């Protein structure tokens, strides 16, 4: 990118152009008449909340889906992209949000996938080319390593390398930073810059405003399937970061909201030592499973009304901690006390009944049974208990009555109580889970990535619910990979690495730096 001062109205010709592209799914319009121009040498940021239609747009560019209306031009010629193979042939490479590598194969084998089936894989040629690309761009991966042994960041590099090996002219990165450390995110930004300088077109999808402002040459904002605005490179260069953020917020929310709406007031409060902890964990240990980290020597205490955050890169034992606390995973040592009462040896149902609740991050995978009606899903952790079951017999009236109350109290939008929960949106499923864990005597609640994958409105609502239950006197353990969320919500933040807590900081002014240092393995 040269910073030639006179604006070039035409600029370089578009590599890929979307003209009034519309995609309809049963019941929703995922993309509505979207125009987009993607140019070589530019990092084009697609910004939008969940449900704004970013993923569908990527699906169409990478050949997974076809537009209902409108057309896609490649190099100026209208070209329907019919399959992933076709997209690759056109030079469009995609790094998906959910890793698309075969875990049981090595890196080299993954990179070789897609060759003609009758040929022998050209391992030698691959090695030479990978080394060459790695050298110029500073990507280094071990070709012989099995993918399942790599970290998510490394897997992402493999995917980028794969796209480059296929001579991609356009590289699409879908929500690529959600699993990375702050440093990893900076590295990715630098890599995108180098790729753009080498003449590639980059499409970078994110819902984080700061990343958009920091990495983008051009920013398009999507909202509810429509493109609601675009900031050109010229304007981007002339604005400061705060002004860019303000402008994007205006596009996304229609009004000057005064900065990032996700940034909330920090609540740091001091809790007197004299107050007895409500949830107290000492030396909790869990043996490592195959592919999952164990826990060792985890100790902490949460007082009534306090929110303790657990920061850390995904996969460092956070899920195991939550599951061990909930009674879902057997601990091999240590004690868990709720208001002084030992929880060790109790099952999930018993802990739930005593007020120790766990809100899982895997809402459809384990939190609910998608094919079961909404009503039953409220009571999955209470199967067999009165008044919903008497002598083992289901009391439909009692279940429906209570479910109806919870639906109203937690503002769940569902066609009926009989609707299979899997048909609801992520936000509504989350409301049902919150209702399940908050109802009837919650005393300590563990949240695992409570806003992951939710849109902004539901994110804000969920955070408010968490604050409310803490204000009501419950002890809250908030596990999140989103540092901003922790800084905005918690009283104290502990950092987790390799199954242990490596440090705890009060959420004061310098918390961001101190947590960041702990996360990359330095002392706070």
């Amino acid at each position: 990118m040269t910073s030639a001062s006179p604006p070039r109205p035409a600029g370089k010709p578009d590599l890929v152009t979307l003209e009034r592209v519309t995609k309809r799914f049963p019941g929703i319009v995922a993309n509505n008449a979207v125009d987009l121009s993607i140019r070589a040498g530019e990092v084009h940021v697609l910004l939008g909340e969940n449900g704004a239609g970013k993923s569908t747009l990527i699906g169409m560019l990478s050949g997974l889906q076809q537009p209902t209306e409108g057309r896609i031009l490649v190099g100026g010629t209208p070209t329907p992209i019919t399959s992933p193979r076709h997209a690759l042939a056109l030079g469009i490479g995609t790094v998906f949000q959910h890793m698309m590598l075969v875990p049981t194969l090595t890196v080299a084998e993954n990179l070789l996938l897609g060759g003609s089936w009758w040929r022998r894989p050209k391992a030698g040629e691959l090695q030479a080319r990978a080394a060459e690309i790695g050298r110029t761009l500073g990507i280094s991966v071990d070709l012989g390593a099995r993918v399942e042994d790599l970290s998510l960041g490394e897997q992402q590099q493999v995917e980028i390398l794969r796209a480059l090996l296929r001579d991609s002219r356009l590289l699409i990165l879908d929500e690529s930073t959600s699993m990375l450390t702050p440093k990893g995110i900076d590295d990715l930004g630098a890599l995108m810059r180098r790729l753009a300088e080498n003449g590639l077109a980059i499409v970078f999808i994110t819902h984080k405003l700061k990343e958009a402002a920091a990495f983008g040459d051009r920013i398009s904002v999507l909202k509810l399937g429509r493109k609601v605005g675009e900031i050109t490179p010229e304007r981007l260069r002339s604005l400061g970061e705060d002004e860019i953020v303000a402008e994007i917020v205006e596009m996304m929310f229609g009004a000057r909201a005064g900065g990032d709406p996700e940034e909330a007031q920090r609540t740091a409060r001091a809790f007197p030592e004299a107050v007895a902890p409500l949830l107290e964990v000492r030396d909790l240990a869990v043996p490592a499973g195959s592919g999952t980290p164990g826990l060792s020597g985890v100790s902490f205490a949460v007082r009534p009304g306090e929110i303790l955050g657990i920061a850390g890169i995904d996969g460092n034992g956070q899920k195991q901690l939550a599951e061990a606390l909930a009674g879902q995973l057997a601990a091999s040592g240590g004690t868990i006390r709720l208001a002084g009462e030992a929880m060790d040896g109790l099952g999930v149902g018993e802990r739930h009944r005593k007020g120790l609740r766990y809100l899982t991050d895997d809402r459809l995978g384990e939190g609910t049974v998608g094919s079961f009606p909404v009503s039953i899903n409220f009571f999955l952790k209470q199967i067999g208990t009165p008044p919903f079951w008497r002598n083992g017999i289901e009391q439909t009236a009692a279940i429906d009555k209570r479910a109806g109350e919870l639906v109203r109290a937690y503002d769940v939008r569902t066609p009926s109580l009989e609707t299979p929960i899997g048909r609801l949106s992520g936000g509504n499923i989350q409301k049902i889970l919150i209702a399940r864990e908050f109802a009837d005597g919650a005393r300590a609640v563990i949240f695992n990535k409570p806003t992951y994958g939710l849109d902004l409105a539901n994110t804000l609502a969920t955070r408010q619910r968490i604050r409310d239950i803490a204000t009501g006197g419950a002890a809250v353990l908030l596990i999140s990979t989103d540092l901003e969320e922790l800084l905005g919500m918690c009283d104290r933040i502990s950092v987790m690495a390799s199954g242990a807590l490596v440090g705890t900081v009060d959420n004061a002014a310098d918390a961001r730096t101190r947590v960041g240092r702990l996360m990359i393995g330095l002392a706070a």
Partner: protein
Amino acid sequence: MTGLFSEVFLGALLFGAITAAIPLLLAGLGEQMSEKAGVLNIGIEGMMIGGAYLGFVAAFYSGSLWLGFLFGACAGIAVAALMALLCVRLGLNQIVIGIGLTLGLEGLTALLHHFQFSRSYPRLPAAERTEIPLLADIPVLGPALFRHHLIVYLAIALVFVMIYVYRRTQLGLNLQAAGDKPAALDVAGVDVIRTRTVAVLFTGAMAGLGGAYLANVGAGIFIPFITNGAGFLGIVLAMLARGRPVWVLLGALLFGLCLSLTTAMQVAGINIPTDVIQMLPFLAVMVMLVAFGRRGSLPAALGIPYERGAR
């Protein structure tokens, strides 16, 4: 006791073991490819009986065993094509359709056989054998192991071909990806449906061939339900072998030996119900499972139809 350990007995036992093992080997190798690609092919029993019937009919009317093998494989492929259409392309439940195909083919072949040969049960002449020079002259072992129909040696050679395919070729990579993470294969530009279809058709060909061998060489006759669970044994072998062709071979030989022992004991006039011996291989496998039963190493997407864009 002399009868039990005589050279004749031993020779017949080993010869029979190989003969009984070959259909299981072919079925197991076929099933292995389907499973690697993520399709649990319960219909393999139907493919085998289809191959056995058509293979027998072709060999009976043409007088050529090779034509019999060809038609047997084709019958297996035809059944597999139906399975591929219903389970791979349309994504219907693999167990339901598999059991349906097995029942249907068992019934259909019994029906056709009834009308074709109206209970005459014609026999084929004994299969010509290919002797391997020198080796065939080893006492006892030579006639038992090295004087078989040519297809026997080809089947055993196939084990090594499969090892090569899985380890060294693009197809091997694609198959594994189709079973472990089909979406990754799809975005790498390879058609998952097509890859799985190829695997299922291969299974059909091998099962059909195995069925034809069973009827034409093993028995020399077709009788309804002749496969008698050999296809299911193939599934067991493939699942126990965990993706390694050599283990299918070893398993097939073990089962073959037990089946052969049953016949041999009957011939030798030893008064143990054949059922006891038939139980042996299953007992051995169950004991192994109980002792070493461990998790993992079946393809992650086994049994799940692939649909692009669905998570």
